[in-house]
């Protein structure tokens, strides 16, 4: 099966009913996408599927073989981080960091849809991403700062 992941065509060997999360983590070594629950309850596995935020744990790999998938690694790297990745780091919107990739990906999806969200719109859009360490106030601040352009221009669309 072929997948389009982070701008590259990747060959994977998995039954169509395998979860996208398992394939990303176990076959493609894209371990930035985390498993917090496996049941679509926590949001740690959020990835972009054609720009939409999806829970990778509930996404069957066979259903997305013609879609463009973007993971946290595809948004940016330590050498070339996405503005949200810079802002989350600079404003301490991460504590243990386990939920952080999912939070950043959800935030990227939000800003792609709504470049200037209100605080209430941010809360609504991010409600599916749990953080047990309690970084919510700093995540809100980071997304608002990126929307104001304080951390550079957002890339054109999701890759």
């Amino acid at each position: 099966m072929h997948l389009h992941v982070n701008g590259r065509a990747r060959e994977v060997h998995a039954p169509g009913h395998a979860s996208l999360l398992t394939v990303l983590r176990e076959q493609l070594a894209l371990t930035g996408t985390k498993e917090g629950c496996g049941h679509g309850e926590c949001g740690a596995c959020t990835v972009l599927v054609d720009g939409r935020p999806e829970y990778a744990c509930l996404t069957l790999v066979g259903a997305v073989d013609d879609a463009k998938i973007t993971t946290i690694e595809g948004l940016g790297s330590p050498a070339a981080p996405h503005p949200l990745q810079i802002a989350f780091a600079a404003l301490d919107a991460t504590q243990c960091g386990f939920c952080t990739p999912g939070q950043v990906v959800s935030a990227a999806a939000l800003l792609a849809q709504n470049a200037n969200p209100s605080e209430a719109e941010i809360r609504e859009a991010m409600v599916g991403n749990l953080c047990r360490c309690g970084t919510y106030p700093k995540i809100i601040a980071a997304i608002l700062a990126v929307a104001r352009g304080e951390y550079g221009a957002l890339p054109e669309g999701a890759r």
Partner: protein
Amino acid sequence: MARARKGRRFITTTVEVEGREEVKVVEMPAFDVAPWGDDAALTIVGQRAPRVDALEKTTGRARYTADIARPGMLHAVLVRAHAAAGVATVDASVARAMRGVLDVITADEVAGQLASGGAKLFERTIRYSGQPVAAVCAETLGAARAAAAAVRVSVAPAPFVVTYDASVAPGAPSVKGSGSNLALNSPLVESRGDIAAGLAKAQVTVSLTVRTPCALHSALEPHGAVAEWEGDRLVVWESTQGVFRVRANLAAAFRLPHTHVRVLCDFMGGGFGAKNAAGPHTYAAAFLARRLQLPVRCLVDREGEQLDTGNRPASLQRITLGARRDGRLTAIRCEAEIPLGVMGWEGGPAKIYHELYSCPNVHTTEAFALVNTSAMQAFRAPGHAEGAFGLERAMDLLARKLGMDPVALRVKNFAKKDEEKQRPWSGNGLLRCYEEGARRFGWSERRAALAGGDARAAVARDARVSRGASASLAREAVVDGRRVRRGIGVAAQCWGTGGGPPAYALVRLNADGTATVLTGTQDLGTGARTVFAQVAAEALGMTLAQVRCVIGDTERLPYTGNSWGSMTTPSVAPAVRMAAEDARAQLFEAAAEMLGVAPESLSASAGTIRSSATDQTMTYAAVAKKLGEVCIIGRGSRGPNVPKTGIFSFGAQFAEVEVDVDTGVVRVLRIVAAHDCGRVLNPTLAESQLEGGILQGLGYALFEERVLDASLGLPLNPSLHDYKVPTMVDAPVIEAFCVGGADATANHVGARGLAEPPIIPTAPAIANAVADALGAEPLEIPLTPWRMLGLAPR
């Protein structure tokens, strides 16, 4: 400057962890380090540096235990029994035959294989629902999960108890199999003064009974381990709060010397007290890896995490307070009942009743009953979070009965010393917390307005109303079509946060003039790695970018204890500082030789060494280059705490709520939190800790409860869908800050712990605000809508 210490190298001292005391022989540091007092000119410590590992986390490159993949690695999944008590029969015949399955281990396979006193893995006797009975090991995670689902576990049922009352009833089935269900020398009685005399002296008394729920840690990263044998040596990656404790656990279970067990934890996804030891997943991974001679990863799934990795036990507290008419407490009494689980320790609610307020007569009892539910584990401020709910609700009722401002009542009963142990505090900023917290909250103005004064005038007067405060302060209002009542509340906190020995660090200067901090601690998301790099950079006179802190490896790094009891910073930071001071002193001797000056004339900042004698400068890099591969290693150790001194952190939180009178939904609008933890090493990270504790406290107040079916003995909500932790929508505006200065009595870095304190006062502050809003007394958390709708007016 360092000077060699005289006298004995090892002394006997008392170390305190979460209120428990242990007498230990500890090493005195080899030299004294002058304390960083408030007047110390620090340029890196105390600054808002971003986490040194932040970008690794935000780009998904940080590697957690579940991300470790070893060549040939297999996947193990635990199988659990879903019955409260009985004898399990495990039929794995179908699972064993499934594609990709290499092994299934049950009680039969492990019997006699692990040392007793080490691990208990897979017993046939079931004592609680969620108890693991087998592990399936397969080529892939998917195959392992499918096979685990195919293991048939049947339990021949036995009588059980899951509530306190049932556990202590005559003729109750024994949870252990034989003997009484009362545990831990119950009832534990702690007393000072004469409680009867104190109550007789009281002019006003209040009595109430409160209940707190069983709460689940619910870290986003479940427990997990990867185990690999290198010959007869075991290497384990574990998501843990204590790599050295896991090493000791594994060494005991597998009868290995410590030289043959290496435990690693670089990044870990939250602990909150549940990850303090090796667990069944660890032993299963190591056991299977040895049997199959291949690396094995065993991750606990979310259901297992919520069922069987620890909890804050429920409590019932019967409280009586007595006071004089001027508010001075004359008596504090609390009788607590705690259904502990199948095992646990004495982390009950009583201690805060003895510590927080000045009162000559205090009497508490705690009765711990074993029940057929999973074992408790320390959960962020174990005991104090429960106890604060009872004590601070009681203080609220007392203030109302006296007609006193609740803040004034607390100030009136401020404890100038630790009355429980009759010793001074190393420092106590609680009065400043009340004052500064009330000021930033606008406490007096809001209180007056809600009591019927001119709301608009109060808002106008309150020039410092922070974001999130109600625009109006009328008691009743219609907000977005909802009829709401508003209220405010306050609660206070104390928690022992002194840390202590043993803890060690090394600072190695590299040949390019950079420095590496080596200390075997772990960073749970607190920012430990960052603050230790800051402390080392400060003491070395280098920039933060020139220092890297390496943690979480029992083989290559020196010992530190578990990250519990808010003690990582106060235990390890002094060792790191001392190691850095030692390394700097050695480098200065080398630089002095190169510059032809006395070492005493040298100082360093931002990586440059300067001689006050000749004004010559030389960078660390230049000195290191001249030294070549001459290796400078500084060694630091944590000395004992000052004897007979209470080292505690304090705080006060103020809550503003709206309660929807038609639906009973409680919405927390704002929390103002003022805390004192001595020197703040990094204000940004401190704020994050405070916000995190407050949000967990908000969950405890409003949503979180493990729900048991008492007739079946089964937990009904072992998922993050049904066990509700706060979401971003629930997060109030939080204004959290620290008021304290350096506590040079606590240790030479001046910092006390901060991790656990912020969860303690949040739930009572919110409940007190709800009481204010509704004119009724919520005595049980979580404050669910149906409970709010059922509250009788006062």
